[in-house]
């Protein structure tokens, strides 16, 4: 039969342990100082925050390199507007659950390094107050043009156009992406590289197939010429048709 009031005493022993523990045991005390430097006033627009996420945080803060907050557009190294990846295919605009992306397709095409000239988004706005950072747009985007940024300090005094991120604010370089989400950026680039390699391989295979066909055609013409009376020599089999569809772009909608 336990001592009267033993439950209360045990409870108090626990609080005492926590009281003393909070001074020494790092694991118990886990509240952190607030991050934003408090001597600067809040910028007018969300876009005016310093571009690089690192500049606004205090050294002591630790934003894990997995957290996602609002989307950002990627451009490869070089002048941002030339190397933008987004081709304004507006899939993300349709798929976005809270419908917070607004894209206006440009009418002229822009030369892209590597691929053929593509459209580019004349305006690409994301209303940060509507976006719920659910990352669906990143998933459905076939061009890896949009990824999640972990910059969370975007508070502004003005509610309407203050929280509207224009294309200029959204555009960030790939190295920045590597800086904030190293692992994710790494395997995303690897996947892009593999796709490119697969495409070249396919292209080469296609050219090889074409030459083979040309050769076969000349050979056929020659052989026809020599023995057009001889019965048709069996054509080499059709060049292997690539199994997967042409490329992700034409997924039917």
């Amino acid at each position, binding site marked *: 039969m336990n001592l*009267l009031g033993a439950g209360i005493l045990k*409870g*108090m022993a*626990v609080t005492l342990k*926590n*009281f003393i523990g909070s001074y020494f045991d790092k694991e118990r005390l*886990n509240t952190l100082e607030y991050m934003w430097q408090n001597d600067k006033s809040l910028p007018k627009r969300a876009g005016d925050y310093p571009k690089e996420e690192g500049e606004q945080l205090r050294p002591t803060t630790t934003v894990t390199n997995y957290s996602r907050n609002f989307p950002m557009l990627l451009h490869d190294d070089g002048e941002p507007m030339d190397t933008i990846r987004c081709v304004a295919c507006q899939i993300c605009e349709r798929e976005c659950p809270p419908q917070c992306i607004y894209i206006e397709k440009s009418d002229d095409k822009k030369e892209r390094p590597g691929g053929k000239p593509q459209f580019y988004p004349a305006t690409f706005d994301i209303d940060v107050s509507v976006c719920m950072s659910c990352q669906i747009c990143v998933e459905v985007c076939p061009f890896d043009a949009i990824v999640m940024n972990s910059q969370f300090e975007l508070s502004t005094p003005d509610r309407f156009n203050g929280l509207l991120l224009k294309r200029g604010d959204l555009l960030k370089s790939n190295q920045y992406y590597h800086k904030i989400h190293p692992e994710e950026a790494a395997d995303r680039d690897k996947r892009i590289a593999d796709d490119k390699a697969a495409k070249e391989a396919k292209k080469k295979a296609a050219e090889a197939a074409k030459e083979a066909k040309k050769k076969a055609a000349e050979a056929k013409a020659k052989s026809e010429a020599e023995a057009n009376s001889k019965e048709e020599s069996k054509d080499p089999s059709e060049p292997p048709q690539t199994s997967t569809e042409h490329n992700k772009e034409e997924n039917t909608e």
Partner: protein
Amino acid sequence: MNWELIKDILLATVPLLVIFPTMFALTTWVERKALARIQNRIGPNKVGVPMSRYGGKLSLFGLGQPAADGIKMLFKENIVPTGADRLFHLLAPILSLIPAMLVLCFLPLNFPWLTDEQNSVKAFMLDGAVIFFFAITGLNTLAVFMAGWASRNKYSLLGGMRAIAQMVSYEIPLVLSAVVVVMTVGSLNAGEIAKSQDGWNWFVFSPWGLAAFIIFFIASLAETNRSPFDLPEAESEIIAGYFTEYSGFKFALFFLGEYIAMFAISGLAVTLFLGAGDGPGAEAYPSLKVIWFLAKICVLIGIMIWLRGTLPRLRVDQLMSFAWKFLMPLSILNIFITGFAWHAENNNEEYGFTIKAIIWTASLLILYLTAKGLDKVNRANIKPRTYQYGE
């Protein structure tokens, strides 16, 4: 006007007015810091002296917090609800502060600069100090009612009535447990009680003294609406207690009154049970007595804060049945035991060690068994249950 008398009176009262309010400010800080630490937070550390020249600010580990609270309370606009009784609305916080302050001067603080022969000090050594103490704390209930009634709002009246019911029903165990000490010392005078406990024979070391101290401490928790009994002000069911309609400086007065009452009651507990001013170095340098006295008060306040961080609240009917069905019978029994033990000790001559040991163990056993029995009677079916596991 003989200036001699006035000088003595000032010498006796001004230190009280200086020491206890500063201790009040410190206790609010300590309470918030300690509660925070119990909950693994850091506690207030943002208020600091803005050293704009050096950038950032000098955070005084939150010591600026009580000052900030005080200033905030001063500048808050105090609203008096329409239709409320203006006079009593103003009078209630003052009436809640006066008894708390008045009672402080009867504690045997024996300041070193107050030698005994000055006649002003004798005035303070009131003959019926302990009874006077309970009479004055009784007035506190009055202030609570006045606050509840004067703010003309049904809920604060309800809260006020509950607070009064709680205070009145916990005053009885408070007084009965004090009777134990007065009985053995034979005098109501706080100074004599303190003198009789010199040299480490504090009352808390005898079994009935310990039981009385525990009852006294629990009842004092209820008297000042602290921790497990803070029903009136932190009512999660109905809106908060009797001082909802108060803001600004009047609320600060209530707040101050509550803390000073806490000091006063724990001061009395120290005088009655923990040998006021008696500590290792007390005989050598009498000026150490004050420091010992205040240290013991701080220990009791610490325990109160610790309790506040741990225990949930009691329901109203449990609160009442705990006072009437558990504390009161226990304290009455304790009085009988003390009477018996005191009689055995003082009247027969061969009061050797063996009889003393027997009496002590017997009384300890009786007290514990009755407490256990009472607890079983009151809460018959309340015990931790076991559960079965299904596949």
